[in-house]
């Protein structure tokens, strides 16, 4: 190359240390446990391999009045390419614009540490709840299409209120429902944050959460439920992948799990276990096992899996 080679410039600046804030806390998770209840099978396609969703650590650093989280995975994060995702020729990299497309990372934060205060529901499709002792006030949902996910969640919640109203035994009055629907956008924005300042580097994804959301930097005294799942970035737009399997609309951009092995979802699910959570890797408190927690649901009694928070300074 007769021109100045830009790689030299890049290598030169390597000598400069990266900007780093004060580490607030670090949660670690065992390597090789990206198998849900122990039987989860990755989709049999080229887009996901074991290790891709294996969370090794989640670090929080102070960044101004906000928090810079950094999730480290066992394998390099898959970067969206030019794969076509619909009959119109839409490219994956044009819809998954933030540099990743296979991972959802949910963080549910119990900031008041008051048992029973907050909510225990996780986002749609996670099919798990949180123990009341870790009921959350704030959630951070790292997902490949944050804006669309937020819009979709609001739409789903509005529909849920409408459905609630239609029930014969509903105690909701019209005006109450209308007020609740009106409040949904504000409530979602106040309580659930979908990061859009995201950086993908090798096996790390870092994302910024402003202080305005958490009222300052994240604290090591709060309780965190951290769960990794497979992202379904095409959910809203590609029924061909869902192929009418009944999961087209009811889950928020998450890959489901089914018995057997599949190319378009996780396999290894239990037979007749529709409420089995499709969570791949979960950070659990000391003394508890992920594999055990994720099997503790009861399909007949509709009792879902219960997850527990981890307190970094516990």
């Amino acid at each position, binding site marked *: 190359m007769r021109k100045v080679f830009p790689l030299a410039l890049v290598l030169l600046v390597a000598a400069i240390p990266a900007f780093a804030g004060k580490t607030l806390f670090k949660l670690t998770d065992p390597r090789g446990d990206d198998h849900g209840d122990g039987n989860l099978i990755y989709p049999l396609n080229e887009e996901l391999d074991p290790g891709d969703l294996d969370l090794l650590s989640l670090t929080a650093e102070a960044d101004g009045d906000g928090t810079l989280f950094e999730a480290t995975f066992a394998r390099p994060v898959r970067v969206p390419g030019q794969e076509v995702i619909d009959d119109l020729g839409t490219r994956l990299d044009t819809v998954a614009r933030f540099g990743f497309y296979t991972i959802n990372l949910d963080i549910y934060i119990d900031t008041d540490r008051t048992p029973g205060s907050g909510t225990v529901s996780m986002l749609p499709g996670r099919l798990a709840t949180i123990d009341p002792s870790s009921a959350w006030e704030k959630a951070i949902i790292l997902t490949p299409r944050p804006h669309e996910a937020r819009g979709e969640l609001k739409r789903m919640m509005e529909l849920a209120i409408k459905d609630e109203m239609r029930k014969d035994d509903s105690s909701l009055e019209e005006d109450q429902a209308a007020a609740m629907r009106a409040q949904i956008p504000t409530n979602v924005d106040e309580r659930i944050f979908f990061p859009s300042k995201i950086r993908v580097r090798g096996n790390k994804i870092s994302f910024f959460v402003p202080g305005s959301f958490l009222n300052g930097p994240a604290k090591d005294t709060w309780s965190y439920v951290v769960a990794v799942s497979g992202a379904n970035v095409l959910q809203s737009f590609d029924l061909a992948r869902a192929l009418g399997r009944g999961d087209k609309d009811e889950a928020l951009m998450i890959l489901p799990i089914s018995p057997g092995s*599949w190319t378009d979802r996780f396999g290894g699910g239990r037979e007749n276990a529709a409420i089995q959570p499709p969570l791949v890797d979960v950070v659990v408190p000391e003394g508890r096992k992920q594999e055990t927690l994720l099997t503790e649901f009861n399909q007949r009694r509709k009792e879902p899996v219960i997850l527990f928070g981890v307190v970094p300074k516990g």
Partner: protein
Amino acid sequence: MRFNRGFAIALLAVASVLTALPVFAADGQTLLITGEDYTKWLWGNQRTDGSLYNFTSIPGEGYGDNGQGTEINFLLASKPSKYVEVTGRIQSRFSQNQWTNFGGFGGRNPAFEDPPGGPCVGGDCGEFDPRSNEYIKQRGLTVRITPGYRFVDSATIGSTDLGMFDAWTIGKVRYIDRDNAKAVLLQGAVAGRKLGYDLIRVSLPRLWAGPSFNTGDYTAADGAYGLQLRLNPNQYFDLVGIVERVTDQEVDVTDRDFDDGRDVDFRFKNNVYGVKLGVHPSGMIDLRGTAYFSEAESNPTFGTPTGFGTSGFSPVVAGKQDDEAYKANIDLNDPFGVGLNFNIEYFDIGAAYTSILAARREVDVLLTEGSDGAFAWPGPDNSAFGVFPGNPTRIGYGGWQGPAQQVATLNVDNEFTDFEESMAESVIGWKGITIAPTWTIGDLDLSAEYSMIDYNTNWQAWGQADRPLDQSPYPNHESDAGVNSYRNAYAPFQDKETKIAVLRGKYLLDVGKGVEIFGKIKMIDEQDDRMTDARFLPYNADGSVRFYSPGNSSSSIYFAPPTITVNGVTGFQWKPFDSLSDDDRDMDYKLYQLGAGYQVTDNVYGSITYEKYDVDLQDGNTAFQAYQLHNMASGQHDKNKLMLHARYVIGGAEFGANYEYNWGEFDPDFGGGFVTQFADADTAKNFGVPVGSPGFRGRFGGWNSLITRDFKQQRMKVFMKVRF
């Protein structure tokens, strides 16, 4: 903090509704039907309306940059029992179903024309052609059986996209063809699920999976068998082995005894063996290696090509071939603790590496960006065979958007695509290394690439100096002329080296919701001396034919020019090929890109991108003539692209718009040593040049204009997707 009631109810309701839903339709005969409406509007100033796709090279299919059309897609699913599920897809196609067809009625019937069977283009055959009569066809039907056996997870019978194998062997089928492949597939695992397997028998696609893009006359028994074993003993190590065996068979014409049945013989066979190894010692380092070995053989008894000239078309090399392909990747994740990562890739793909079912597009087998879609075919306007009348550019001056995808096959598929899609290019014969660092400085993300590419196809006289140049086993499609040629892998004389350097940047400007600023600088330095040995020159100094081996001379393709007189000037019609430098190629390619994107609301995103291409290309002179078949592209190319993109999502509907304005100039520089001719009225009409404008006629009478060409191309694609 206590939650307000509305939020809690809504979130709880959404979540609890879910828990009541089955993951799959319940056992029984419930049939779930969902659908999609795909609609697109195309507009462009090329004023073509042959079909609702911007590009195809398939004769008689039609292409266009104007028109409006709609597809309907029905998705069916049922679960007759606990063990069996059925999925299907019924769909209409864009094809030539323009809204202006007014329902696809009427039209000309080519069957009753004299001569019959003329091409239907732009919907003019109305109800007499399935591409314009809005027909709906079965696109996919799959039965999946999960028998509950210990070592068999599932048996899949019917349509599959083949996504369980890999791009080098049995590649995933492109999206719009995803249900076209039909197969029987067994999947399962043994040894405590440490060893998984995929065993498949795919019916061989008769449309493209064999020599000359077909599988002969007796097609129904043609198939491919594939076995993939995946060993995953722990999180630090994985190993995959793949065996693929393809047989295209024909009825044996020498078997004259019909009473004992008919013997068969092979028309084409192709075996591929692959090994993929992954070592993952820590989060800091990731190692992967792949090796493939291929054998391919065509049987000329059944009309398969035995050789090609300087423009042969076939997805496989003629004759009996074997070759290898290797790749090794090292990912270093922040090894210095400063946020600097490296991806390093070594690759070596044999000139005759052949897997007829390898992925043809929509994958990227190499780390490098490779070429850009803006330059797709040899002519300065992206035309092929543009020196002959009736071969205008199809995709247009602007080409496709973005960098190319690399595929490990000659069977590259860019058919039925629009301008905002990616172009795929063949990497058969490539070998080299790519180093791709990524780094972050504050809010600025940087990534770079440096690739050095050498070629296993660097040879003289096709690497067989004892044979004539027009008997090459290598199909070189649109030739290696021009800035780029996406499915060309071979040239008769090649001594090429390519260096690619890219620096990309992305910065989130803290304005409003955050303005994403992005850009890149890309440079390609490519040199190809092509003919490097004087013994291959076509003529001796005294004008006699020079033979590089007994009976063989390059004068068969580079024959001498006649002497002509034009406006009183007498000289050669083109420069005689008398110097090794006559066909030299030297490309200095620069791309500058700058863009910005903004998420206006959760539902609305828009971006604007400007790209400037500055290409200084020497691609031989008039002695070389781009192999006599294409518009010469030697000279200065100045191409500009302005791209606007918008996307709007509402519920289950999505709208998008892509607008592109391409403008630029090509200033030809074909050297000297010939007499300039001037366009007559016919030439002016055929090639869109002014009467009397300068140019020259090549060996086969093709016209190359010498005037500076100014390009202006506008085009737009607006689309709607609705689920129902």
